[in-house]
């Protein structure tokens, strides 16, 4: 066994360029690991082995000729929310069980251009709605650290795949914490960029004012490498921002001496597990030891972020998911009596329980008579939370706190009550409401389970957030831990 699977994305790219190993060899090894892990972890919905080997052979030819991009021959996986031409894109839903993307998402096309080789499409909560990956039509994903536990969600398949070293990097999306929360629960690095930084073209829409694509990798340096290729203006996404993309990799070594860190009082609330708190406080000491200046910061309206989210996100979801009508693509019921019956039964059969719950919540808060009391009110409170962040960033460069209140929880533990499940995202939702970049990095273990540290920066400060995370990872080794059985 060559143990190529323990290499980081950056090491793999370098090793391929030096021809220390071939892409075909690497892809073969990882495909075997995926196949072996699948019955237990269920991290993938589709594995594209033949296409991957063909792409690896082409990459090896490119490398042999001395050509290639930043990721030539490097295997990655895509969350099954990104459209991949000619490959099924299910979004974890029965609704799209038979949907074959007619085109590539911009993120997929950009990573392909950089030379990356796709191994398959990862499992996820249906339409990215969930915090435990228990809402997938294709069954739950299991946490590689303990298969009785959830990996987090909604990008649970991508997170489990990277944690189990089935692949060194995977794409993911974050609407309320769906990159950072599974990163924390699986002991890896999860980067959610600024809203508008990464194109949403071809990324199945859930809540359009919150959705943002990003990365799941072992290290912040790998996140920088992947994000540099993924980010950038896209005329096909009207919310894509025309700000140039800095070289995140080159910026990694920026020292953090003098970095002003705000510790968020609201993140150390009564819901935070004492052991999680201990890990996060120890991490702050590490950053202080590197010369960062730690001060207190407060976002007084942050406790309202979960209620705001559960109005805004369902409202946008009910509108986005109106397109699934059983007519142009997706699931269609048998023998519809009339057009209305076609719509109602196709949607009733095609959507799972949590999706229906959110579509109906959204329908209600947007309906005549309730729009002002719920939707407009939530948008106003969202503005207050955004102002809180802007004020906090007047005095500090980054805000730091825990990513989640607790480590991973057992499968089935929170499925009976939606509110309990929603509160998992209490520390992550704020960054989505304000459109801010944020990263989760491993910062310790509680009873053998990883804990995440969250670093949030002002708009378009990805380079700063990544370099702070990288500085932390240079002097700690939490991100190098691999679950038993996958090393």
């Amino acid at each position: 066994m060559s143990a190529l699977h323990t290499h980081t994305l950056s090491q793999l790219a370098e090793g391929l360029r030096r021809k220390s190993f071939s892409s075909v060899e690497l892809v073969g090894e990882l495909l075997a690991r995926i196949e072996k892990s699948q019955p237990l972890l269920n991290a993938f919905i589709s594995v594209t082995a033949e296409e991957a080997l063909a792409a690896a052979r082409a990459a090896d030819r490119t490398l042999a000729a001395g050509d290639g991009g930043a990721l030539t021959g490097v295997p990655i996986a895509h969350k099954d929310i990104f459209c991949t031409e000619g490959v099924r894109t299910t979004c974890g839903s029965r609704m799209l069980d038979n949907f074959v993307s007619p085109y590539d998402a911009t993120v997929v096309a950009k990573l392909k251009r950089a030379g990356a080789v796709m191994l398959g499409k990862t499992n996820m909560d249906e339409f990215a709605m969930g915090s435990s990956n228990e809402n997938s039509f294709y069954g739950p994903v299991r946490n590689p650290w303990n298969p009785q536990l959830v990996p987090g969600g909604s990008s649970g398949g991508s997170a489990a795949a990277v944690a189990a070293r089935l692949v060194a990097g995977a794409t993911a999306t974050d609407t309320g914490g769906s990159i950072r929360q599974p990163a924390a629960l699986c002991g890896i690095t999860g980067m959610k960029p600024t809203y508008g930084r990464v194109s949403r073209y071809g990324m199945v829409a859930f809540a359009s004012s919150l959705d943002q694509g990003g990365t799941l990798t072992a290290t912040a340096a790998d996140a920088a490498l992947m994000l540099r290729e993924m980010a950038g203006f896209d005329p096909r996404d009207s919310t894509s921002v025309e700000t140039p993309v800095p070289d995140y990799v080159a910026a990694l070594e920026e020292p953090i001496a003098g970095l002003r860190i705000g510790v968020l009082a609201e993140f150390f609330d009564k819901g935070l597990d004492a052991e999680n708190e201990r890990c996060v406080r120890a991490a702050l000491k590490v950053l202080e030891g590197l010369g960062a200046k730690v001060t207190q910061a407060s976002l007084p309206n942050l406790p309202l972020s979960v209620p705001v989210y559960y109005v805004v996100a369902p409202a946008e979801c009910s509108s986005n998911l109106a397109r699934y009508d059983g007519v142009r693509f997706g699931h269609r019921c048998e023998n519809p009596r009339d057009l209305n019956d076609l719509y109602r039964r196709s949607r009733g059969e095609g959507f799972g329980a949590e999706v229906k719950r959110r579509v109906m919540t959204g329908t209600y808060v947007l309906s005549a008579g309730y729009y002002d009391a719920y939707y407009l009110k939530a948008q106003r409170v969202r503005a207050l939370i955004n102002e809180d962040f802007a004020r906090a960033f007047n005095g500090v460069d980054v805000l730091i706190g825990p990513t989640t209140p607790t480590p991973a929880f057992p499968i089935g533990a929170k499925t009976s009550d939606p509110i309990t499940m929603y509160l998992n995202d209490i520390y992550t939702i704020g960054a989505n409401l304000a459109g801010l970049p944020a990263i989760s990095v491993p910062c310790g273990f509680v009873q053998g389970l990883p804990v995440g540290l969250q670093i949030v920066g002002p708009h378009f400060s990805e380079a700063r957030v990544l370099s702070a995370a990288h500085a932390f990872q240079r002097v700690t080794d939490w991100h190098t831990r691999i679950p038993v059985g996958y090393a």
Partner: protein
Amino acid sequence: MALTREQLATIATLARLELTPSEIPVYQESLSRILEFVGALERADTANVTPMAHPLPGLTQRLRADVVTEVDCHERYQLNAPLTAAGLYLVPKVIE
């Protein structure tokens, strides 16, 4: 606030979702809980606060030149359609 069975049925109709009789009380209960939970927003003082629809302040929707940029791909797109004929999507008869 607690939703009645009738209110829940109306929401399902507006959302074009067929629910089974056993699903109705389940959603009645969970939606009521969610509405109670988000009711916490009422307590926030938002007088003179402009509603925020977009996370990047000051960003406006971009316009582009009024020229055709897309090519006709309907055949490819219709490969995903449940039922088509002569390039058209087929649905049950709407007008008798």
